[in-house]
């Protein structure tokens, strides 16, 4: 479980996070939703340590990550997998070399073990046929799947996904959503997905945190989400005709 305790973060005079407290549950897909500029990405970066919060702290299974030194954090970082919005694949390496990268850096496996593990991960995302291609030679959806394969290579306890569906067609987006949902159960991970895609939220979320202007205004699950209750949340969730139609039919 990941806990955020009263996280504050400002850039100059601009307060981006204003006291975020939240829990992300193990073996669940925990969504963080909100409008662009609401502070979701900064929240994720504070959680994984890419940005230091001004105050508050983050705990990973009761280990205070914020208080740790860079060296101490290294241990937890090796338990974290992250899928970035653009894939963030190393473009000079082939697909399989990308997946092997964390294994080469941190595992004690022999070369044959690394190759086997990398191919297992690629098989899991159904991309073993693309193993020797460069990231620029595969589609956006495939790049996301390679990103997932690389993220799970080290068998992480925590998985972060930043806008996993951005730029994907609806069918591919559902494939990615289901993959994230399935591997969360399979690897018993604590998964945190940052998204503003309501299709994805309705497809894959177990818990949902709604961030608005740097604060969590609401949290619950997808069934409670449709009931609404908070004006800002309703404006966000029911912004599209499709969601309004769904609400009417309920």
């Amino acid at each position, binding site marked *: 479980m990941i806990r955020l305790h009263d996280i504050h973060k400002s850039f100059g005079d601009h307060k981006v996070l204003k006291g975020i407290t939240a829990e992300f549950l193990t073996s669940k897909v925990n969504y963080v939703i909100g409008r662009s500029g609401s502070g979701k990405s900064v929240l994720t970066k504070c959680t994984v340590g890419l940005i230091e919060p001004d105050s508050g702290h983050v705990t990973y299974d009761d280990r205070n990550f914020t208080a740790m030194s860079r060296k101490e954090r290294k241990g937890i*970082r*090796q338990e974290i997998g992250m899928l*970035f919005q653009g894939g*963030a694949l*190393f473009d000079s390496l082939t697909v399989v070399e990308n997946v092997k990268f*964390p294994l*080469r*850096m*941190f595992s004690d496996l022999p070369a044959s073990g690394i190759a086997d593990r990398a191919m297992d991960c690629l098989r899991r995302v159904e991309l073993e046929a693309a193993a020797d291609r460069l990231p620029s030679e595969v589609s956006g959806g495939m790049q996301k799947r390679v990103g997932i394969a690389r993220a799970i290579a*080290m068998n992480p306890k925590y998985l972060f996904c930043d806008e996993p569906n951005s730029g994907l067609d609806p069918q591919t987006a559902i494939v990615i959503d289901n993959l994230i949902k399935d591997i969360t159960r399979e690897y018993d991970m604590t998964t945190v997905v940052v998204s503003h895609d309501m299709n994805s939220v309705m497809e894959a979320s177990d818990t949902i945190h709604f961030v608005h202007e740097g604060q969590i205004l609401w949290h619950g699950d997808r069934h409670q989400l449709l009931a609404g209750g908070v004006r800002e949340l309703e404006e966000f969730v029911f912004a599209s005709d499709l969601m309004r139609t769904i609400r009417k039919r309920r």
Partner: protein
Amino acid sequence: MFFRSFVAELEAIGTQSVGIVALLSVFMGAVICLQTAHQIGGWIPVYTIGFTVRQTMILEFSPTLIPVILSGKVGSSIASQLGKMRVDEQIDALEIMGVNSAAYLVLPKILAGVLIIPFLVVLSMVLGIGAGAWVGVTTGVSSLADFEYGMQVDFKSFDVVYALTKTTVFGFLLTSVPAYHGFHASGGALGVGQSSTRAVVWSVVLIMVSNLVLTSLLLN
């Protein structure tokens, strides 16, 4: 992983720069020879041509102008490569994995630059002087004996030490400054382009300033 990365940088910074270094050095050596021949006459001895080509190549053209030119080629490549990695979140991905991204990405480039650029400069000296001799003889402005004599007259081996000392410092500057700018790039393609431009400009400025400082310290 580090060694593999270091070898790749040796190739990118060193081997892939041999062509441009050779081209520039050959033509500069030849032009210096012809310009010197044009300016001497009457009471100035012909061996001055060999002397001037040697001194120009060893003291200034090879150790200073070759790094300046390489800061355009190598520096912009380093800055744009790291800048793209920054804006594409590849550096964030390394950090998330627990990799020290600066050590992993920047250190091999700096070490490779410091190690390989002096070799390129020595190559430049040899090719420049050789081209000067060849052009001098083939155009008839100097005999080979005069050129050889000029090359050897008043030769101070410390000049080579001075040149290679400068080159090592410039090798550090032309890799570390672009690496800094690329590593801290932001704002998409425009930001990468700006970081690349800043990297080249600051590398050249720092090479010129340190050239003056080192020359004052080492030759006076």
